[in-house]
């Protein structure tokens, strides 16, 4: 094989971010070596630790692989047939990509909130109780549903219409319903993939306040397009960028650190340009 004749997209660039040394205990240690979609190298060399009870925010331009990395953390990407993951995701010391691990079980511990609010077409109550029923929870459903809706800051608005369809709510309410559904089963980690991008500013504010509340109980991973959102809620920030130097579009981690440091005193020039808004 002639390496020069067939350009190798897996070597688009050599920049590897300095390893971020977390201050506290971590819940997930994500060490991406390479993520492929078929032949296409989507993400390379990204080490992201998630600290317990903190919000780790992912920022970066479109196509930089931040959502891909986040969705790899509970094996949602397994649903894409051509997806291939090289590396390890250590969750409390177990690699969730080990052969013996059942991805369905992983997703019960590591919950997810998606970009588009996606309640099921069933009642508000059933939406929240869905995960409990799935786990064959025996006990007081009403109390659990109420707690989850209270924690999602939605209880006051829906307590008199729990029988109504989840789809009858407004966009912001639907997203908080999805958060309630995700936290009803008390997962350990909550992954949020641009949870506010389909919401108006008021609903965004409510969801952000909610994230800060949720941080007390859960460890949160947040992908956001909005840098201000990262500064408002992120404890640590990981900046991803995309390398288009050699035909491919491969995302990689540029810099990670405490949010204040990443935004006020970035170590990398690329980060500096991005947080100043010089490109996006």
């Amino acid at each position, binding site marked *: 094989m002639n390496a020069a004749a067939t350009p190798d997209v897996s070597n688009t660039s050599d920049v590897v971010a300095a390893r971020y040394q977390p201050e506290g205990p971590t819940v997930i240690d994500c060490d991406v070596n390479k993520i492929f979609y078929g032949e296409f190298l989507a993400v390379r060399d990204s080490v992201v630790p998630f600290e317990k009870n903190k919000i780790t925010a992912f920022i970066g331009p479109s196509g930089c692989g931040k959502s891909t990395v986040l969705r790899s953390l509970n094996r949602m990407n397994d649903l894409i047939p051509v997806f291939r993951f090289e590396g390890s995701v250590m969750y409390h010391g177990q690699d969730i990509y080990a052969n013996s691990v059942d991805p369905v*079980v992983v997703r019960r511990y590591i*919950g997810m909130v*998606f970009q588009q609010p996606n309640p*099921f*077409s069933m009642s508000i109550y059933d939406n929240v109780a869905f995960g409990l029923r799935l786990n064959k929870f025996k006990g007081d459903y009403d109390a659990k549903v109420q707690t989850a809706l209270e924690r999602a800051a939605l209880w006051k608005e829906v307590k008199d219409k729990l029988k109504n*369809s989840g789809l*009858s709510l407004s966009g912001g309410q639907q997203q908080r319903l999805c958060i309630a559904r995700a936290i009803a089963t008390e997962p350990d980690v909550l992954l949020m993939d641009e949870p506010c991008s389909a919401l108006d500013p008021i609903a965004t504010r409510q969801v952000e306040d909610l994230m800060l509340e949720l941080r007390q109980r859960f460890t949160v991973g947040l992908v956001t397009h909005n840098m201000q959102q990262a500064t408002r809620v992120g404890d640590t920030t990981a900046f991803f960028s995309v390398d288009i130097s050699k035909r491919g579009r491969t995302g990689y981690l540029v810099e990670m650190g405490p949010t204040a440091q990443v935004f006020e005193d970035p170590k990398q020039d690329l980060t500096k340009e991005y947080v100043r808004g010089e490109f996006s």
Partner: protein
Amino acid sequence: MSDVDITAARAVDEPGFVRPNLKRRMLEGRAVKNNVLTVLTWIIAILAAIPLVSVIFMLLMRGGTRLFGADFVEVLTALPPAGFEMGGGIGPAIVGTLAMVGIASVISVPFGIMAAIYLAILGPTSKLATTARFLAKVLTGFPSILAGVFVYAVLVANFGYSPWAGGVALAVLMLPTVVLAAEEAIAQVPQRMKDAAFGIGCTRTQVIWKVVLPTGLPGILTGVMLAIAGAAGESAPLLFTALFSSYYIESLSAVNNPTASLSILIYNFSGMPFENQIELAWTASLVLVLIVLVFNILARLFGQPKD
């Protein structure tokens, strides 16, 4: 073309400004063309409705006298009359039609929905799915009499006429409709709902049972109802499979158990030289149309999104 000067609107302050004329002018070329075409579509729509309305009118006039008359209970329950006999009814035919449509549904609905799940979710692009989908589309245009011949060769030649043979023949005709409608309904369940279910820790089976099927249910039911409505009116596939009988079916036995049906009763009685039988054929036609109508209305009701 147009005598409206658009630039005039900008010249408000200038001398010689002419206010643009926005009035409707009926004799303008495009207005005339518009009106002519509108009237034409009305006329064609009415012409298209004439056969349908006249058939229903005729059915009501000739079949309605018996069905809505004083002896409607006898008409709906009594056995069909023999030649020269007066009175009588179409009871066995109604029961037979419902029984065979029921058998056909019991066979085609579970098969159809499971096939649709495979086509829409499990292997939408696999070779098997592409082939099955193509065959289902071909089968929707399958001549119904051939379904009867097929079942005759497989079942009737071995076990004799029976409601099961009739039901299987109808099931063959219903299956493609159910499969294609259910596949469509299942495929329309948004991906984000399936993502949500996977994200909360569902296995693939749980995603299908708890999210995809309940969400797609209205569409699936619409397809099932339309298939049932179509099957209820079939006569050709029943000629070779259920034959006919003047008596109520006593059992669902699949061996030598000829069964009456409305469509065959209509066929038999309409050719008889007796006024009474011909009148009953009209009544049976009306009953059949009403049954089909009920299933069509049910299909529309189920198809409506509930909130």
